[in-house]
């Protein structure tokens, strides 16, 4: 683990409207196989990816939100949500399908700065 790089995945898109959220999740699961230090950041509409209670039967699309709960099995345990984004959408920590750390925009920026690799979705 000593030569592990710090990877951050920045998620800024709502699920289902575009393919970005699902693509990001798949890349995260693949990256997890390489024993890197992985963080997930949820900014802007990306916070909607973690909303509890998604029911996609009506739009005939796969509901991939349960997979966020499997991230723990993949040793991906650093999930960060931007507070400002959460507030602007009327959401609270209780709305999320997994436990997250809520950070201010400034704190998020600092964390981003500390990464070796940042991938944006």
């Amino acid at each position, binding site marked *: 683990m000593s030569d592990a790089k710090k990877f951050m995945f920045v998620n*800024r*898109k*709502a*699920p*289902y*409207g*575009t393919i970005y959220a699902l693509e990001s999740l798949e890349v995260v699961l693949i990256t997890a196989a390489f024993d890197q230090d992985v963080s997930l950041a949820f900014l*802007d*509409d990306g916070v*909607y990816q973690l*909303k*509890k*209670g*998604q*029911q*996609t039967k*009506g*739009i005939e*699309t796969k*509901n991939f*939100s349960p997979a966020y709960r499997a991230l723990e099995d993949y040793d991906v345990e650093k999930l960060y949500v931007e507070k400002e984004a959460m507030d*602007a*959408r*009327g*959401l609270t920590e209780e709305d999320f399908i997994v436990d997250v750390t809520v950070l201010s925009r400034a704190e998020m920026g600092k964390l981003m700065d500390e990464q070796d690799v940042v991938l944006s979705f």
Partner: protein
Amino acid sequence: MLHIINQSPLNSSTLDTCLNTASGGDILLIEDAVYAATKGNAAEAKLRAANGKFKVHVLMPDLEARGLGDRMMDGISAVDYGGFVELVANSKNCQSWL
């Protein structure tokens, strides 16, 4: 006229432009635009202010898919796919904003 919007209000200026440009009629929010009609969203006030000038509808399957079926703001009409078709059929013309 029916205005169909499919972009999230916090990620795109489409809803703003529609509200500022269109002279009235129906607005149907689909796909990521349904977030605009949820309680506590920053766009809620704008939509509320537009509510007399426009009649606002939300496509429920899209809202439910996003886990917000129980968060719809007041004063909005919920429609299913049948309602979507009816809105289009009953409108003189229709614009799908991009």
